[in-house]
């Protein structure tokens, strides 16, 4: 059913007013701040700093790289789990248990989880103890405060989003399509490759988009997991706001991050729209 | 006063004209079929009556009241949807009760109405099931029960039997016809299946390209199609090219046979319609047409044999020969004489 413009205006009006007051206005303030200095004058110096300095580009590049790695890794780990959950596991109670297990980590704040990571990845943590016991390593590896730790932490936080996005599409796939493929002589694997996978592309797109977006703006996880040794864009923003008390430069970094993210997302959706995936 | 009066209704989607000024009256108690191929505008017309499509021009009146601007829920019509549109989260009973509850029927009476409607379609035993637990035919009946529970003045059916298998469809056709007679409600239904229209409807509205091509009883439009389009769409038709002389007299193109009909001089491309079952093989008939033809192919279809033949002019003709057993009659490659009575053929000028 189409909605008339009148009703669309009514239905959208209040949420829109809300968003304008509590989101767009702060956003505009950020934009205004990014063009001013402490004296309140109009200036481009913040952008000159951010755009003219290779350092900020490196940090932005690292942030995007991290988000990309997180996307790919959560996809590789999340897809099998989503597939198992929706198409392999038939017992209802096991399914429920799985869903609870997937949702639980989301309910726990990153600070709480960080205690767990310290115990798991630490020098005397479970992973090192296990590897030592198995004789795989001779002395404890440094896992915490490394690149690996950041990625593990990011995967951990983002995985549930990816799993749920993919599962919601797989769940609604018509099972007869897979049966038809098997019937036509496709092996289980080629059925997956030629039928299930292409049809689940919308879930993959939704999952990667949300994971990418959340990764780019995430702050606590990279901060905690890197042991203060790596810098991502959101940390620069936080530092400007909270350590240097220079929201002007912080705003400019935020605007650059926001614009980059928007451009990438638009490019991503355009590429997907242009090239429908072959099935 | 007709129950439904459709007056010069137009509708376009962008530059595409879907309804080009359609006018149609439907009387109370009638069973009318809107027949046509997909894209002819029949479903749009039905949805315009139901109120799901806002028309661009013209007017639809139901029981004398203009429906322009009246939302679907305030129209005295109900619809059976092509895919039934049963609410998946509601039981059969609640699906059927949906309408009566909305129209403010006292809650005590709803149960009675629901039971009655389910009984009418023979689904009383399934009242507590969910739609997905029913077969296609059962869902179809529930959709029907849901629509009639609201006691509409007009029941609109959008390809109601389209999703059913052939056998079930045949049975439901008869059931629907009987149901319509029993309830006395006006049925307006959309189909692309001419047989279905012929079996069920009192009157058939043939639609073509956003306009009505012909309205009439099944017999009418079969025997007396007013256009090449209708002739071709309803039943099987041999449509033979004719040449028109200056005085308006016709002769069969390429065959050199004069025909005892006349058309207005200057008529463009008139044609002669001969139904396959009217064509005889063999001896010439008195006061008819007789031609030479070559048999291209023959197919045995149980109660009859179909012969595909080619005339001297190169035009093809289908012959429906009843009462001939297997192996009888001409075979492929035979040169035969065929013919038909003059009054069995019909001239088409449009």
């Amino acid at each position, binding site marked *: 059913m189409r909605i008339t413009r009148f009703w669309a205006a009514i239905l959208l009006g209040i949420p829109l007013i809300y968003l304008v007051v509590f989101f767009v206005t702060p956003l505009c303030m950020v934009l205004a701040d990014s063009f001013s200095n402490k004296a309140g004058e109009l200036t481009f110096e913040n952008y000159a700093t951010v755009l003219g300095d290779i*350092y900020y580009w*490196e940090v932005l590049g690292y942030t995007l790289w991290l988000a990309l790695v997180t996307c790919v890794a959560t996809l590789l780990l999340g897809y099998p789990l989503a597939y198992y959950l929706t198409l392999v596991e038939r017992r209802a109670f096991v399914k429920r248990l799985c869903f609870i297990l997937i949702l639980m980590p989301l309910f726990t704040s990153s600070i709480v989880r960080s*205690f767990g990571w*310290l*115990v798991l990845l*630490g*020098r*005397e943590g479970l992973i090192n103890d296990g590897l030592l016991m198995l004789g795989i390593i001779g002395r404890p590896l*440094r896992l*915490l*405060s490394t690149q690996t730790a950041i990625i593990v932490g990011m995967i951990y936080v983002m995985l549930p989003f990816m799993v749920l996005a993919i599962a919601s599409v797989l769940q609604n796939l018509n099972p007869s399509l897979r049966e038809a493929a098997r019937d036509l002589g496709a092996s289980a694997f080629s059925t997956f490759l030629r039928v299930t996978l292409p049809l689940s592309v919308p879930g993959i797109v939704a999952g990667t988009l949300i994971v990418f977006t959340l990764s780019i703006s995430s702050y606590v996880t990279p*901060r905690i997991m890197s*042991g*203060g*040794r*790596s*810098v991502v864009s959101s940390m*620069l923003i936080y*530092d400007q*706001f*909270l*350590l*240097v*008390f*220079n929201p002007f*430069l912080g705003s400019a970094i935020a605007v650059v991050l926001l614009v980059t993210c928007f451009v990438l997302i638009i490019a991503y959706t355009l590429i997907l729209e242009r090239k429908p995936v072959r099935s | 006063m007709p129950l439904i009066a459709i007056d010069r209704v137009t509708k376009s989607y962008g530059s595409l004209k879907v309804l080009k000024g359609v006018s149609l009256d439907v009387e109370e108690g009638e069973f009318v079929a809107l027949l046509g191929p997909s894209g002819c505008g029949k479903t749009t017309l039905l949805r315009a009556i139901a109120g799901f499509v806002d028309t661009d021009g013209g007017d639809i009146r139901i029981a004398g009241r203009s429906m322009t601007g009246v939302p679907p829920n305030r129209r005295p019509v109900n619809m059976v949807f092509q895919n039934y549109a049963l609410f998946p989260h509601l039981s059969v009973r609640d699906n059927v009760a949906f309408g009566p509850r909305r129209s403010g029927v006292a809650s005590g009476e709803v149960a009675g109405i629901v039971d009655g409607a389910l009984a009418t379609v023979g689904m009383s035993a399934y009242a507590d099931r969910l739609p997905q637990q029913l077969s296609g035919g059962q869902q179809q009946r529930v959709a029907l029960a849901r629509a009639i529970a609201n006691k509409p003045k007009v029941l609109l059916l959008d390809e109601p039997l389209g999703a059913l298998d052939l056998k079930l469809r045949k049975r439901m056709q008869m059931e629907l016809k009987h149901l319509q007679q029993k309830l006395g409600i006006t049925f307006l239904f959309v189909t692309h299946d001419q047989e279905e229209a012929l079996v069920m409807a009192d009157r058939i509205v043939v639609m073509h390209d956003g306009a009505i091509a012909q309205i009439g009883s099944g017999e009418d439009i079969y025997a007396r199609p007013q256009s090449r389009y209708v002739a071709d769409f309803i039943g099987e038709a041999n449509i033979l090219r004719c040449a028109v002389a200056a005085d308006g007299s016709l002769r069969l193109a390429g065959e050199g046979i004069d025909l005892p009909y006349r058309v207005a001089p200057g008529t463009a491309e008139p044609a002669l319609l001969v139904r396959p079952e009217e064509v005889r093989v063999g001896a010439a008939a008195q006061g008819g047409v007789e031609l030479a033809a070559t048999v291209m192919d023959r197919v045995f279809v149980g109660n009859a044999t179909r012969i595909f033949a080619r005339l001297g002019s190169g035009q093809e003709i289908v012959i429906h020969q009843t009462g001939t057993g297997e192996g009888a009659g001409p075979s492929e490659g035979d040169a035969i004489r065929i013919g038909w009575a003059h009054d069995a053929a019909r001239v088409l000028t449009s």
Partner: protein
Amino acid sequence: MKLGHSWLLGGTLAASLAATPVLAQDSLVVAAFGGKHGETLQKCVIKPFMDKTGVRVTVDQGVSTVTVSKLKQQRDNPSLDIVWLDGEVSQVAEADGLFADIDPAKVPNVANMIPEGVYKNKDGKITGLSDGYYSVGIVYNKDEIKQAPTSWFDLWKPGFAGNVTWPSMSDGSGPAMLVYVSELLGGGVTNLKPGADKLKQLDVAAFYDSGGNASNILARKEATIGVLDSGAVWALADAHPFEVGFVIPKEGGLASDARLHLIKPSKAAYDFLNYAMTAESQGCIAENYFYGPAVKDVKLSEKARSRLPWGPEGSIKDLRFSDVNAINAHRQEILDTWNRDVLGRR
């Protein structure tokens, strides 16, 4: 839900005070620290003050940087009456004019304070009062490290490689430590390169963002040695995860303090400040969180005396303070140096 101070809008301070004396008298909103330090302030200042005066004090817990951010955002209509801030951060707010001047006549106990504990702006007005000193030194795990370190530069010894923890810029002492190391190597706040180059070579287990973070890293034995302030060190020592050692290096510990600032003057607020400057209150803090009092003539137990930042027999004169004003003037450069030269391409 509705805050009791929205009446401030539109009226002058005095007029509002006159109009709503009851509100002003009866409740205070105070920003304080969290964790053990916060619990100590609750026990030694807030609760006894409430018991004595009947004024209701509501605590707004938070880290100093966030508190300053809130003050900046709500400059014209602050929700806070009094704030506790880390010495490193409070100068930023002072320079920004976020504090109200403290009238010494209304805080008689100022007379009983050591002069260093009374902070004045360039016009000679009092803008802050010290509520206890601490010193940043070297904490180490005595179970693992038998020989006590003596110098800051001992942290670079190969034996400690990968086992050191050091404050990041998010921790209060981070910027000052970077400047301090630079100074020790011949640089300074305007020449951070020597410090940055040195710190880049420091093989840390992790940089910590807060005292709590550092305690946890040490307790889990991720690091066996590191730089930490005395308050957090003694709290850790009392949790006994291992035998905790603490030394003030021979170059000198880096000291700082917790400070109280007035945002919205009122009688209750002055009374609160006055109570916080009693020997009773600061003594309690020294006994519980081992911060050195800024008030004269505080009687302390043996244990508390041995844990004072200036040692059992010393005084404030033995502490080395960094030039907070200079550091704050160069916060951006310090952060940039840290991010680019210390962390960059590690």
